[in-house]
């Protein structure tokens, strides 16, 4: 007897003939894709589902295709340009069997082309969708290992590390040696990894008629290049972008050389990677003229124009110095700056300071590292801040720099909004931006201001590219000029800074700080940690630089000799407070505060 229950169970049987993605997931992927189209080049995170293919076998591309495809679509799947590749075959039968759509090898008939590592040679028209399988979506991975930092760099459009890597490549190898997946700047905003398509295909993404969708299943990212979007390969203005080219190579089958060729066999022959195109060329079913016009033949490598080309003196970005505002002669002004580590904020202050003999709040246990620190510095003037370790001088400077979050006070720069804006109210990215060209820092430890793996020139290039310099030769000239000024031999310009001595590193750091001619320079123990003779040399350099530039400098040091050599006026700090201030020579010869007298006595010993 068949029970009613059996019958009921049977009627519901079709619920298991599911696709390989449930409907909710498809909606989610479509939403992410739409976001990606709205913000070209931005990597949209999505809840990537596990597919019946491995992560890395196109699970990202497959999810996009399955989410956007309809039964009336026609899909083409290629891998390395080949419709018959095992991955392509595998994905094609999976897509066709679960969606009921038609499949084709003819690019012209396809509405969706899912691909791994190639853009078809055939023109992709308005309405066609190219879905690219992405193994590694993060273009910055090579220059930044932390994903948090990569996210910050994208958010702030801070791609100088990328530019430095190109600069270093040129310095070391005489050309940009990046191969597939060449980074591009999309719509002038986001740097994007062009999956690993060859450089040959990169120009095809620029101002295209078709929509390109990129799916990274493992890394759970979707990004897009909508039609008619500006897509520029990253390269310097005076260094041409190059596509793949082997002189004399042509396809053994169709005989053409205006296509992307891969090795055919092991005897040095070449063949079209796009097998469909090659077959149609041989069958005379292809528009060869239009194809040749599309081919990036103008980007074939030309060693003559690569680097030997003398400077095409592209104008350097020059930052207009703000005219001094009448009645305001400072470049940097700090008022009532305070920093409390721990609980209580300003309430922790009472009971701390020199009178109490402690920086630790008796009520909350917080450390009042600096409180009520005020000063201003004028262009052409150097101000010293002296005190022993723990006096709060470095904390105060760190608050000005933005490395520490101040608890109280205001910090203003004449160069910013004519001094009306309090830096402490700005978000971190705005403060980082200021450090590029408005307020440079020289750290005690050169490693804090430099990338030791990068060459001396490359470190300076980092600052210059961040400030918008895009001429390779212009950057080299400027770097050479700066290194010469800080007495780093030009023969060392292309050596990694890690091979430099401490004093040389510090000189490179100073050159980098001065690269964009910032109106304000902050020096944190610039010679501490160097041998005495080396320190003297760096001090001389700084003295010369400060005297010849109209720079406003703040010098923090525990060493009276450094303060005396560099500054006109000085603050003395003890237990977080300013205990005395005056002309530097007066503090040294006529110190009033007991603490200052102790410092002087120690310095004279």
């Amino acid at each position, binding site marked *: 007897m068949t*029970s*009613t*229950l059996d019958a*009921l169970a049977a009627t*519901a049987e079709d*619920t298991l003939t599911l696709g390989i993605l449930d409907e909710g997931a498809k909606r989610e992927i479509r939403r992410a894709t739409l976001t990606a189209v709205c913000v070209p080049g931005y990597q949209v995170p999505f809840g990537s589902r596990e597919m019946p293919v491995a992560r890395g076998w196109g699970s990202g591309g497959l999810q996009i295709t399955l989410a956007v495809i309809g039964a009336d679509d026609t899909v083409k799947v290629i891998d390395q340009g080949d419709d018959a590749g095992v991955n392509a075959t595998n994905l094609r039968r999976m897509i066709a069997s679960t969606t009921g759509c038609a499949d084709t090898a003819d690019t012209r008939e396809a509405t969706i082309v899912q691909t791994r590592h190639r853009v078809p040679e055939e023109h992709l028209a308005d309405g066609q969708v190219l879905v690219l399988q992405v193994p590694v979506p993060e273009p910055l991975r090579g220059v930044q290992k932390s994903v948090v930092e990569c996210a910050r760099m994208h958010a702030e459009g801070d791609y100088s590390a990328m530019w430095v890597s190109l600069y270093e490549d040129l310095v070391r190898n005489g050309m940009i040696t990046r191969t597939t997946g060449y980074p591009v700047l999309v719509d002038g905003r986001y740097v994007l990894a062009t999956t690993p398509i060859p450089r040959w295909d990169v120009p095809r993404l620029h101002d295209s008629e078709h929509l390109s969708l990129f799916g990274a299943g493992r890394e759970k990212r979707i990004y897009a290049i909508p039609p008619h979007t500006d897509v520029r390969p990253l390269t310097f203005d005076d260094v041409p972008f190059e596509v793949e080219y082997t002189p004399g190579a042509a396809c053994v089958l169709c005989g053409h050389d205006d296509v992307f060729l891969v090795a055919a066999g092991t005897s040095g022959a070449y063949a079209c990677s796009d097998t469909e195109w090659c077959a149609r060329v041989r069958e005379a079913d292809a528009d060869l003229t239009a194809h040749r016009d599309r081919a990036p033949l103008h980007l074939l490598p030309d060693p003559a124009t690569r680097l030997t080309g003398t400077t095409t003196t592209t104008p350097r970005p020059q930052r207009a110095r703000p005219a001094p505002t009448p009645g305001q002669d400072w470049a940097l002004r700090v008022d009532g700056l305070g920093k409390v580590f721990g609980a209580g904020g300003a309430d922790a202050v009472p009971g701390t300071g020199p009178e109490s003999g402690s920086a630790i709040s008796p009520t909350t246990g917080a450390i009042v590292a600096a409180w009520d620190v005020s000063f201003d510095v004028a262009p052409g003037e150097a101000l010293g801040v002296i005190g022993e370790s723990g006096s709060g001088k470095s904390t105060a400077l760190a608050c000005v720099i933005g490395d520490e979050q101040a608890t109280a006070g205001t910090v203003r720069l004449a160069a910013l909004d004519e001094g009306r804006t309090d830096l402490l109210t700005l978000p971190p990215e705005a403060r980082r931006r200021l450090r590029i060209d408005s307020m440079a820092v020289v750290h005690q430890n050169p490693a804090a201001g430099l990338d030791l793996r990068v060459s001396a020139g490359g470190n300076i290039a980092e600052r210059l590219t961040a400030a918008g310099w895009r001429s390779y030769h212009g950057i080299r000239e400027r770097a050479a000029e700066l290194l010469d000024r800080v007495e780093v031999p030009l023969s060392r310009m292309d050596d990694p800074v890690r091979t430099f001595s401490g004093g040389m590193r510090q000189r490179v750091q100073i050159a980098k700080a001065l690269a964009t001619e910032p109106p304000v320079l902050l020096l944190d123990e610039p010679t501490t940690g160097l041998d005495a003779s080396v320190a003297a040399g760096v001090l001389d350099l700084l003295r010369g630089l400060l005297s010849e530039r109209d720079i406003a400098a703040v010098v923090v040091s525990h060493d009276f000799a450094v303060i005396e050599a560099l500054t006109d006026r000085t603050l003395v700090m003890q237990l977080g407070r300013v205990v005395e201030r005056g002309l530097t020579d007066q503090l040294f010869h006529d110190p009033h505060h007991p603490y200052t007298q102790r410092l002087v006595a120690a310095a004279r010993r």
Partner: protein
Amino acid sequence: MTQVVSREQRCGLLADAEPDELRALADECLADGGDVRVLVGPEVGFVTAQIREPVAAERFLLGDVLTCRAEVELDGHRGWAMRLGDDRAAVLAAAVLDAEAEAGRPHAEAVHRLCAHVAGRRADRDDAEWAELAPTVVEFEELT
């Protein structure tokens, strides 16, 4: 037969019943040709296990538990069932039994008996399980 089980307890016990028991009783319930409609499923899916961990009293999603569920209407009374696993017939049967009991239909008492039976079996299994586990308890000398 005592009738202290709540609807939630009944659902829980039916979820623990053997598929054969459920199907047999559901067939009996439906044998009178009552007006039955399947409202939901029976569908296989998952319930995401949400844990409130003890260190920070913070919730997190541990993972998913394969479950199936069904909902039926029997003589205007809705019955609902969910159980672990993917036995769609069993969960549909359980939903029918839930409706039977809700509607107070002829086999309602049989449903209650099945629940009691399941509860008793669970207690027996607990006894048997402890009988096997108890000898593995490390016994220390009494510390005074």
